[in-house]
């Protein structure tokens, strides 16, 4: 008998001895929603509060101010990694101050060494969860490969207020529409507390996370 059959047989045998009655259905009495309306000012405020708590840098602006905000943020970084599906205006704004763009695509990925020396990476996101201060990327063309938001030391992420939901279940419902996409949930910059429980930001991921929220 191969290992697969052996393990499945053991599992069935074990259940035969320990399973006295059928498992009850899962009670889902927890909150799917909260009073905070997705996309509302309240949702954005809550998200900002959480992000600041994680020591992310938060910048709020109107659509018309986005180019200036990005220009200010990325003017002096030298080079910016961009995924292929980023709105051209964002790329233009990011490079207006003289930064070089490094285009990364699945077909022509930048080598890790190039990502390592890049000044920053600029992406969009799929959804953000206000209650937990979490931004989720799901690998679509405006977010790019997982590596590009990991190796550069600074990640600038642009969110629209309409993408901000209040609760985790609301975000999982959005993500569940395409469950097979590779996902990265980000809550603040990389951090460790492994030495005497003292928090140190930035071990391996980006040490700086800038979140630009467009309202």
């Amino acid at each position: 008998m191969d290992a697969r059959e052996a393990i499945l047989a053991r599992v069935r045998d074990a259940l035969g001895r320990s399973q006295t009655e059928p498992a009850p259905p899962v009670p889902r009495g927890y909150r799917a929603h909260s009073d905070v309306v997705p996309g509302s000012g309240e949702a954005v405020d809550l998200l900002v509060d959480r992000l600041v708590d994680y020591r992310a840098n938060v910048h709020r602006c109107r659509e018309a101010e986005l180019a200036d905000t990005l220009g200010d943020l990325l003017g002096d970084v030298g080079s910016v990694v961009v995924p292929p599906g980023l709105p051209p205006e964002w790329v233009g704004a990011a490079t207006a101050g003289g930064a070089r763009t490094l285009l990364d695509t699945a077909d022509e990925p930048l080598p890790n060494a190039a990502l390592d020396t890049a000044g920053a990476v600029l992406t969009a996101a799929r959804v953000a969860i206000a209650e937990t201060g979490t931004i989720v990327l799901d690998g679509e063309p405006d977010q790019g490969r997982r590596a590009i938001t990991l190796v550069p030391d600074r990640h600038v992420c642009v969110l629209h207020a309409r993408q901000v939901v209040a609760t985790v279940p609301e975000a999982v419902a959005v993500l569940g529409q395409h469950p097979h996409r590779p996902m990265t949930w980000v809550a603040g910059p990389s951090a460790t507390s492994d030495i005497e429980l003292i928090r140190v930001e930035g071990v391996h991921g980006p040490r700086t996370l800038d979140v630009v929220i467009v309202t």
Partner: protein
Amino acid sequence: MTTFLGMPRVAPQPATAPQDPLRWGPDFPTAAHETLGNGQMRTNLRHATRTIRDKRLRMVSELPDWEELREAGSAIKHWTMSHLPELLVQLEENVTARGGVVHWARDAAEANRIVADLVRATGESEVVKVKSMATQETGLNEHLAAEGITATETDLAELIVQLAGDMPSHVLVPAIHRNRDEIRAIFTERMGDAPADLTSEPRALAMAARAHLRAKFLTARVAISGANLAVAETGTVSVFESEGNGRMCLTLPDTLITVMGIEKVVPAFQDLEVFTQLLPRSSTGERMNPYTTMWTGVTPGDGPQAFHLVLLDNGRTKALADEVGRQALHCIRCSACMNVCPVYEHTGGHAYGSVYPGPIGAILTPQLTGMGTRGATDPHDPTASLPFASSLCGACYEACPVKIDIPTALVHLRNRAVESQQRRLLPTGWEAGMRAASAVMSSGSRFAVAARAAGLGRIVARHDRIARLPYPGSLWTGVRDLPAPPAQSFRTWWKEHQADGATRPAGAPSPGSTAGNEA
């Protein structure tokens, strides 16, 4: 304040490397007696457990539906165990459909062999690893080393433990038994490329580790990980972490090998909404851990283009066969039970002699190793003393995000240990149990602390249920029903039961003998 005087030589803790990661060292009472003498460890531990405990309480109280989430988490796990064969087959189908390869391993040796073969097939002799309880349990690193493959742990604490030649002492903060000066010494002596002027500032130490590992991450072609959960319905596998070393391992190499206990499967994608809320808050006391990665098979152009999932039994089906004990398989390894356990706080993780310490270790380890399932338990099997390593205060049950009733499982397994010993007509298991209890309860102040920390009032509240337990559980309820349990009562009780025939073995801590260790 500690003063750093010169360069201490790094001595591994514990001193001897384990043959079997699930079962090493002496039995709990002997090991506890040793670790109780380690003042550094206990100072660190007390600070860590209290800090995490407080943070956790704050984060949990923020959610109005915490109890409903626990109910759901518990029920999902129960449902999962009850449908495990179908779910595992479904998971395999979905991972395979997305370009992954699924392997099955009956035990640690088989899992290690599969992984070593997969690594060898890539032609590589170096791999990077993200912290994984499953591969610690199988002793994978040692096996790979014997096969000429170097595995580098990339979680900061695991790296410290690996460089020091240590065993982890906590599930969440494995190097909590080391302080910053020791860590500086470990890096300076063992890391090879530590900066000459390395200080013992945590930030400086973390940055030294970053620099040390960066080159490895950027060039590694093979990575090995564990998994926090896997969704049967979609084939999605997930790792929760903080530092980004997980993302490095999970996305940069060409080949990813994930080793996962068969109990880690969950039925539906929707179930993620329960565990992504329960796990971080219970574990690190954060609303969300900094990074969670989810992947399904292979994504063309993004991340590893070869993905192997190894499904590990290694005793899990033995646990599943026990009607009461099988709930230990619901564990999501958050470590909350360790941080509230008065026994763990005093003895530290190494006393449990297994990669799974604390309350969950006390019920999981003996089941994985099959205590009492095949005739009598070997009287020298250290895991048989683990179910006795508890004051039964119930704090672990209160803290557990998936509502594992650890106290009831402990008593049930004590019974199993004792019955198995009775088959041998030797009182060894019971004796070891008494010694385990004495390690904590022998000191009046220590037990008082334990009782206070745990909220002893609960015991009385749960009296009805506990009181119905059969022998030897009934003996314990006799002790636990005392409204105020001073050491005096325990000693009196101990004396009485010694008279019943259980003699205290030579070298066992006698009541009061370890009181001097109480800081």
